[in-house]
């Protein structure tokens, strides 16, 4: 995995904590919807924040394959690397 992956994960967790509150434990394998109770609309809004954080376009279609924090981080990483 490229070197900026840990940074992506860390920034992503920061955004997730804004939704879940600071006390919730977030691990790479944590399920966004079932464990963090992030509903579909919150997830869509989170994507806009992520787009701005990393200056990328994340089509919401791609979320169909995303369940866990790690999968979302992978998606961001993939889009970010394709851009460079």
């Amino acid at each position: 995995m490229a070197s900026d992956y840990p940074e992506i994960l860390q920034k992503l967790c920061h955004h997730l904590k804004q939704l879940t509150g600071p006390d919730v434990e977030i691990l790479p394998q944590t399920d966004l919807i079932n464990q963090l109770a992030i509903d579909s609309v919150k997830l869509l809004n989170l994507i806009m924040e992520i787009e701005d954080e990393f200056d990328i376009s994340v089509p919401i279609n791609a979320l169909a394959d995303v369940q866990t924090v790690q999968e979302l981080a992978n998606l961001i990483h993939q889009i970010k690397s394709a851009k460079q």
Partner: protein
Amino acid sequence: MSLLDKLDTVAAARKALLPEGIDVFGTPIEEVYSSTEAKIGGRRILFLGTNNYLGLTFAAECLQAAHAAIDSEGTGTTGSRMANGSYSGHRALERELADFYHCQSCIVFTTGYQANLATISGLAGTGDVVLIDGDSHASIYDGCRLSGAEIIRFRHNDMADLDKRLRRLGERSRSTLIIAEGIYSMLGDRAPLADIVRLKNTYNSILLLDEAHSLGVLGQTGQGLVEETGLISDVDFITGTFSKSLGGIGGYCASNHPQLDQLRYVSRPYIFTASPTPATIASTRAALKLLHDGIELRQQLWKNVHQLYSRLHKLGYQLGPEPSPVIAILLDTPQQALMLWKGLLEHGIYVNLILPPAAPDGKSLVRCSVSAVHTSEQMDYVGQSFAELRDSIFQ
């Protein structure tokens, strides 16, 4: 989880939120007395949640036209627009809508939902981008999904945000369809059309405007936001519905691009469904004439809008950002919204309830829709009822 278990989970979540004994999202209307009054639960109630903006559902001209069409052409077409289902009335309505917008062509669809599905999925495809306002109607989201294009959202009515997202797309902005609504169905606010047009021209994108809630409501002849702003020639495609100010059911897309006609051959929501009934087409044609000439109806509508909006504002209710026939009352919790909805029904007033996640920003909404044919007394009574309910909601 099995397929049926999933539905049980949905049922449990709804049960936890909603009170026993009333079906909030399926309240049966037992009898309809007029465009504004009906019988629910054995009582006379006032409609304040329908989208009957001009009150045309009982207009004599529309009833008469629909009766005549049923008698001469039957109850249904039993065919799609592509096979057996395009009567001369469908074609005539398409011509009349094109003339109404002073544009080249128009296609009629069976519902407004399908008009968006058909237009968006006909225009955009795999490899293209659709850039949509975050508060877009479900039919826009679903049309985008059907298209297979990449879906990007911009923050509701935020033009700096739209600019940023277009810039990020680089060259791809040229194969991007931007979608906005004339008046948004959730909060009742208009799209900042002049800014959207400026951006779409800068980035060479295509613009689709859904005038579902603004048709008949904005502009001298009721064209919608395109007329109010004088920007019709900068909007590439206009979609809309017959199910609101025209008092029927059906939808359309109008455009000056000659390519519009090709949707008839590629668009699944146009091809694979039956066409609107003769009565629907006939009443819609009659309603379109009334809508076009309905300057007084629009004046009355806006008078009612301002009366109710300012009354609710003075009472301290948190409202959508600007007065419009869609008046949304924003509440912090679903419980408050439910209490207000129920309280209004007990006062004989039937409005819409919108709970998260359907409502924006985690809020809950009680949404009123104002009609030109609501009387001043009815508006007074509504204001009075909101006044009586306020303290119990915010205690």
